[in-house]
């Protein structure tokens, strides 16, 4: 069982009462994490983890230090508080210091499912069986990860702020590989309520992709129209979102400084088809309702029909620039055209369908150029139909180009990516002129 709101209110009050600092901030997070991994159609590890994290930041004037620990006995609490205060007194003054926030008004969180929280650590193997049965029946090697995390987090400040949020999330991803190693497919899902889990159909998708991708034919690297399935789309768009920083833009070391002259906000930098926003209470992909410093997260439009609407901005920089502080996003929603995948495919004369991306890394911050690779299901589209599996590619491409070259999109869904687990509800994207730099021999 995770701690209740009252449990964590009592605990954070107890810690704050020990504080002798000018001001203090306390965070607590308690979690039970059940997770299992499987490979070659057998479970390889099956774990139950009971976890706790506490932290206190103590401030004297603009001097500040934080201590985190994971024990709740009275001595450990006192020791951590004392240590943070002594470290804070020794820390240099921070000219960018911001005092803790007072009580805030938050949206009502909807990131918790009692049904999911009630499932025990032994439940995962039962859930998984249908997926393993699917890969065994197809005579492919199934490998993957199933995780159920139930957590409760709270934040309190000496200025009167308290916020509590329970959460549940179930992640499932599966790779199916043919016995000869010449075909590979992948699929995933992420849900808040385990009643919404679709393990068998997710596994079936991975199996189907694996079998379809056997004996890929050679195709040279070049610029092609592509369909990025939702997982691939989320990995690229996520990178753009994290780069939408007000401070970097003001300091002239952002990709935005190459895209626009002057203030980028209000300029159409991304093309009319691009719209992105965050909403912590979005039912299909809820997130945290507050930032790590206690700012309430609200529905925030980042890009609307190609126009940059907001940049995230920390409290110090907001004060300095006399603009509102805007917390970084906890989730991302990209509305789609709700076209079925087949309809997107039908619009492509000659292009590539991408299931999944891998190892995305920044190459050039000035242009927000990222590199990465395709994997686990890459197909050639010809005359509006998938014609054959093809080799994987390395790409060098910028997420800004993805939005600028966006032609059409499908139905948003909540899937996992290779690079982050932030909840995202995003459609498959049909994008023109995607730059593949070289061929990868990997299957």
């Amino acid at each position, binding site marked *: 069982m995770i701690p209740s709101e009252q449990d964590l209110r009592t605990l954070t009050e107890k810690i704050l009462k020990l504080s002798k600092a000018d001001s203090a901030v306390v965070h607590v997070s308690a979690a039970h*994490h059940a*997770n299992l*991994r499987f*490979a*070659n159609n057998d*479970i*390889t*590890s*099956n*774990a*139950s*983890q*009971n*976890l*706790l994290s506490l*932290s206190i930041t103590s401030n004297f004037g603009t001097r*500040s230090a*934080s*201590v*985190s620990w*994971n*024990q709740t006995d009275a001595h450990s609490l006192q*020791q951590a508080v004392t*240590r943070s205060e002594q*470290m*804070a007194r*020794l*820390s*240099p003054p*921070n000219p*960018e210091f911001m005092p803790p926030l007072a009580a805030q008004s938050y949206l009502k969180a909807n990131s918790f499912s009692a049904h999911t929280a009630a499932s025990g*650590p*032994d439940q995962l*193997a039962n859930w998984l069986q249908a997926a*393993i049965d699917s890969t065994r029946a197809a005579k492919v*090697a199934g*490998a993957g990860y199933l995780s159920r995390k139930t957590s409760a987090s709270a934040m309190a400040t000496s200025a009167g702020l308290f916020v509590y949020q329970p959460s549940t999330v179930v992640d499932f*991803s*599966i790779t199916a590989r043919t016995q000869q190693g010449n075909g*590979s497919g992948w699929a995933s899902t992420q849900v808040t309520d385990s009643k919404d889990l679709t393990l068998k159909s997710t596994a079936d998708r991975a199996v189907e992709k694996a079998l379809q991708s056997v004996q890929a034919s050679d195709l040279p690297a070049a610029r092609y129209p592509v369909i990025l399935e939702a997982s691939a789309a989320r990995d690229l768009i996520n990178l753009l979102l994290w780069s939408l920083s007000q401070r970097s833009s003001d300091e*002239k*070391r952002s990709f935005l*400084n*190459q895209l626009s002259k002057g203030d980028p906000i209000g300029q159409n930098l991304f093309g009319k088809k691009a719209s992105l926003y965050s909403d912590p209470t979005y039912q299909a992909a809820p997130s945290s309702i507050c930032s790590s410093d206690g700012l309430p997260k609200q529905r925030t439009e980042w890009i609307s029909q190609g126009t940059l609407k907001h940049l995230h901005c920390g409290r110090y920089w907001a004060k300095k620039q006399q603009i509102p502080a805007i917390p970084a996003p906890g989730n991302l929603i990209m509305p789609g055209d709700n076209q079925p995948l087949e309809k997107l495919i039908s619009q492509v004369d000659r292009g590539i369908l991408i299931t999944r991306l891998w*190892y995305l*890394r920044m*190459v*050039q911050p000035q*242009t927000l150029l990222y*590199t990465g*690779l395709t*994997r686990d299901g890459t197909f050639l589209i010809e005359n509006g139909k998938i014609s054959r599996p093809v080799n*994987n590619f*390395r790409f*060098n491409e910028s997420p800004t180009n993805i939005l600028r070259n966006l032609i059409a999109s499908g139905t948003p869904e909540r899937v996992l990516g290779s690079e982050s687990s932030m909840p995202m509800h995003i459609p498959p994207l049909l994008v023109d002129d995607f*730059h593949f*730099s*070289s061929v*990868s021999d*990997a299957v």
Partner: protein
Amino acid sequence: MKRRTFLQQSTATITASGILAACPQPSLIAESLAPSQPSSLALQFAELSDHVLSQATGLGASFAEFRIEQSASESIHTREKAVQSVNFSEDSGCCVRVLVDGAWGFAASHQISKAEVQKLIITAIAIAKQQKGKRLHAVDLETLNAYQDTWQMPMQIDPFSIALEEKADRLLHINDLALNAGAKFCRSGLVQVREQKWLANSVGSRIEQSRVRLRPYFSVTVLDPKKGGFASRDSLAAPQGTGYEYFKDYPFDQEIALAVEQAKEKLAAPGVKGAPLDLVIHPSNLWLTIHETIGHPTELDRALGYEANFAGTSFVKPPLLDKLQYASDIVTVRADRTQAKGLSTIAYDDDGVKTSGKEFNIIDQGRFTNYQMALGQASLIGREHSNGCAYADSFSSFPLQRMPNISLQPGADEQITADSLIADVEDGIYIVGSGSWSIDQQRYNFQFTGQTFHKIKNGKLAGMYKDVAYQGNSVEFWNACDGLGGKGTYELGGAFNCGKGRPTQSAPVSHGAVPARFRQIQVLNTQAEAGA
């Protein structure tokens, strides 16, 4: 109370009241990997360990393991004139791992009490037994030796004994030097970690170990106010498994001046023309290439498909053992968890396997000769024993096969330096410092950048390029190596945070290298790649 005095006392107090109460401080230094005398820590947990192991085996475990860990970290991060954050973290907890009917069960908790441990035993046994009748293959354990031992990493100065004021002052001084030299921005920091592990297993091992690691860093950025644009240059200081003496003695003052100068030169430099070119690669860049193109492909769990869903598989399939010409015959790459200052260095891995005596060549004169292995894997390729490569990144983590320190061995000719290698290049680039990195999930196709790219023309350095990346295929790349620096050019690089597994575990690892020359490697202009 003086600041330093306080922190010295404070550290002692924390430890004295924590779970590892009787553990001697790591500043009591062992001079080598030779076993030291068991500390009273062994006595403190002997009874609880015996209880766990007897309970677990009594409930049907053919193998059981009880691990307790306490980790501490301190980090200071600065930018320009400000210390942005000062953090200290201390976590402790325990886990029980059991093998029942050929299936693993694992349970962990931050609470270390007899009652909580009893719950862990029952949970671990239950989730292992749940797999009965459902498995295709049973986990096959090798014969393990029993050890009773204590090991502490050698170091001169425990970084946790030094006042944070001293560290912060040094970092702000670095920033000041950068700003005074013309940088617009400078961030710097120091991260230090202490790991303490206690491992007991049903074979009879009782092992206590502690080690420390440091990661100092800085990054300077210069702007071009007229044309726009910016360029950065990161420090070449590598993280290491060492004491505070490393940070104290590192010549940051000299490096920061050079870094600002090089950032300015890079900002004004011409872009490279994409083409196949000869490369001379400095160890500060090559360590990461070794990590990605040799370290990861030769992990046996990847080759067997265990990591297929995330980190990926490998082009190095088991039938290639002792057959694959991985590199040119001047290349030998060695795995060694006993290496001085190595981030992966430890006396016993987290499966309880002794690392001394388990050093091995992954590539021997160009030929692929061995995989990295953890428990339960050796028999799958017809070997009797694993080779000390298991690691769990916390008390709550299931041990995985992780990299030992994997290093490119110096060339036979001790006189060869980077300059000698450069002298035999007509048209090429000398690459220094690590930058961006990416490689496919079977480790064929890679792309790396760096910090500085020095043009080589007719055997001499001739200015700088910008916007450089090099791309290739792992085996073709290593077979294109035709020159290695001698012993005196060897340097250790590494990372704190190699990610693998689910939930993702972060492992520290070092890679030593000498400067090396590679012929006709594809170079890209990243600005052109961006279509800009």
